[in-house]
């Protein structure tokens, strides 16, 4: 595995939605990152559909039909359907196989009939459990995940992704207690190790079946921090600390790419702009059209350098305007259309900058993901590219510096809580050892005791 020690983009200004340095082609005439933005729709299977394989297959097929139908009715040139698996699907790889098959069949039909460019992203669930299954890397549950990935690839998914959960117990502990060391260990060390372990297995399977290994996300960690951080008036997690966690998440999500993932990285990876700046792979992101799933403070900014624009997730049910696969594909589809118009007219960079500036100083979490700052964090990562721990630490410290500079220039305003937690986090982070081994040993000692679910054996430590 080759670590990134240089930026694939040489200038942040080269970053633009719809354009990735290394676009991918997924069949059905569909390319991602090759000059246009593609909407992505993701609908959560309704309650009860988990009861049998038949119900789940039918649910998956129906979601696909509804989305396809709306797509042609409003004239979308292209769209991607993502299916995030529920645990039963991954637990039973035959469910995965049949669901995937059913969805691919519908998409093919629409492609043949209308010429619409489509493809399926299948995302098996990470059903491994740190608590239950001491063989985190070799258990039955692990095997089921791998089989499910193979079943997705084998049955026609254009892209396969996963949201790995390595290190979550430790980072959860750190996020709820405002402990930057635990967060760094959970994301930068354990998370990166787990992602490497998983993706070294996933990429060859995808290659074998001519499927695109799409990539991963730090969802289980940085997004937990973001969800807890909540809105401006929420009191659960400091938004500055959350910003540092996000920067670490970039160092982690990059690992999948280093193992051969080609993108589009998963929509919920808010760290994706950083990963794109480093690696040049296309990314999926979400923001203002994912309000169905959660509230973020960077709804426009997240579109700035996206290649696929997603709604994250939505209940499968009926709105006045149609069923949710219809309604939410229309929402992401219309935003993608705006971006594509900007690209076509040569005004892409203007729109990109407007997206960015709409949120840049709304919150520290947004600030560090503005493409110029994302690039800076990328640079901090590649400078320490060979060492997952050091690069995650460097990313966080750089994010802190970015926030502090914006505060100094009176563009970013912080509350006392944000100010204090940033200062204390930076103090802690800067004092940490510069050797990965030392840090790891230290953390194993500390968090094995404090975090009941954390078992170093799970990571062969």
């Amino acid at each position, binding site marked *: 595995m080759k670590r990134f020690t240089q930026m694939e983009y040489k200038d942040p200004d080269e970053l633009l939605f719809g354009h990735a340095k290394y676009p991918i082609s997924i069949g059905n005439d569909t390319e991602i990152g090759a000059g*246009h933005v593609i909407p992505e729709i993701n609908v959560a299977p309704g309650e009860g559909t988990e009861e049998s394989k038949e119900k789940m297959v039918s*649910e998956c097929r129906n979601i696909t039909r509804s989305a396809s139908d709306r797509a042609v009715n409003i004239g979308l*040139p292209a769209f991607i359907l993502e299916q995030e698996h529920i645990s039963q699907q991954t637990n039973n790889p035959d469910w995965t196989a049949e669901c995937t098959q059913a969805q691919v069949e519908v998409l093919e039909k629409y492609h043949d009939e209308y010429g619409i460019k489509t493809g399926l992203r299948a995302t098996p669930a990470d059903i491994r459990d740190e608590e239950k299954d001491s063989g985190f890397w070799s258990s039955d549950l692990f095997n089921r995940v791998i089989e499910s990935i193979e079943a997705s690839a084998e049955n026609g998914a254009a892209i396969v992704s996963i949201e790995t959960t390595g290190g979550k117990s430790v980072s959860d502990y750190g996020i709820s207690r405002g402990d930057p060391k635990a967060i760094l260990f959970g994301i930068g060390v354990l998370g990166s190790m787990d992602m490497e372990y998983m993706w070294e297995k996933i990429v060859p399977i995808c290659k074998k079946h001519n499927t695109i290994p799409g990539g991963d996300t730090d969802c289980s960690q940085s997004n937990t921090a973001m969800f807890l951080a909540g809105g401006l008036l929420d009191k659960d997690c400091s938004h500055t600390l959350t910003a540092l966690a996000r920067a670490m998440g970039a160092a982690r999500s990059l690992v999948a790419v280093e193992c051969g993932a080609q993108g589009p990285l998963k929509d919920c990876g808010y760290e994706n702009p950083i990963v794109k700046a480093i690696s040049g792979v296309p990314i999926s992101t979400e923001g203002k059209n994912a309000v169905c799933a959660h509230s973020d403070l960077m709804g426009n900014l997240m579109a700035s350098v996206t290649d696929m624009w997603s709604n994250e997730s939505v209940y499968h049910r*009926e709105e006045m305007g149609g069923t949710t696969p219809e309604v939410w594909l229309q929402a992401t589809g219309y935003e993608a259309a705006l971006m594509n118009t900007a690209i*076509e*007219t040569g005004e892409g960079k203007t729109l990109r900058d407007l997206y960015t500036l709409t949120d840049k100083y709304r919150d520290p979490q947004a600030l560090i993901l503005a493409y110029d700052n994302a690039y800076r964090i990328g640079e901090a990562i590649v400078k320490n590219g060979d060492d997952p721990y050091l690069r995650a630490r460097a990313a966080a410290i750089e994010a802190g510096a970015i926030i502090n500079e914006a505060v100094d220039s009176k563009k970013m305003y912080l509350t006392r809580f944000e100010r204090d937690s940033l200062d204390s986090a930076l103090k802690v982070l800067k004092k940490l050892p510069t050797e990965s081994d030392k840090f790891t040993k230290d953390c194993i000692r500390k968090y094995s005791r404090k975090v009941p679910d954390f078992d170093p054996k799970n990571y062969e430590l």
Partner: protein
Amino acid sequence: MSYKDLEDKIDQRNVYLRYNVELEGPAIKPEEDEEVAKILPNDEPFRSIALTILNENRDEAITIVKKALDDGISPLDIINEGLMKGMDAVSLLYTKGIYFLPDLMLSGDAMMESVKECEAVLGHKSDSKATVVSFVAEGDPHDIGKNLILMFLRAGGYEAIDMGRDVPASDVVEAVKKYHPIFLTGTALMTTTMTAFPKVVKALEDADLEVPAIGCGGGAVRKDFVESFPMSVYGVEAYHTPKLADAILNDKKDWKDLRKEYSDVVGGFVSEYS
């Protein structure tokens, strides 16, 4: 850059595609459609009558029908062998996406008025397949959905009773007693008027009455709400109505069956039933 300059730079196909234009097949005359050809009668004057309906030509329809009646042709034959065949062809073309709603409405108008001419000679109303009663929920003044339903039902050979807008539950009960419909349809535009539907069901139950199904639909009406009370089935499109009525009439389906088999009954994928 100026608006005009921007516009000229766009390759539209990268932003949107007009699939309706992309997919359009060659133009053919309606009567040349293979399936229509099978429906249309070959004998005169029935063929000409059916063709006037197919061509949405109200005035000519009435003229030819009157002439046929003058010539002593049985009014029932005119209705069943001429007018209804034309209308069947129209419905078929609508389902196939070749005809559009206005075609259907205009053909329907032509048919209904021609039928009236026949009934004048007949001395009574002609037979319909069965009776359906349509109402707009109490408190709701919007009725275009109901009016479309009426037209689709009549085009499908049903006697469709129009109860109008803002209809109290008690009036629906009276109508059921009077007309013994095989199917009721209720429409509502708002969440706060769709609550009239369960009240209708309750009123029917209180009066010990039952209908095979009440189709409930329109505006803000949701399937999950409609399925939260008995006797009802959520109706998605106005043109589904005669198909639901047919299923009740011919296959003895009731609301429970229709909920389960809606897509099959109306013959195609229905997102709301997925």
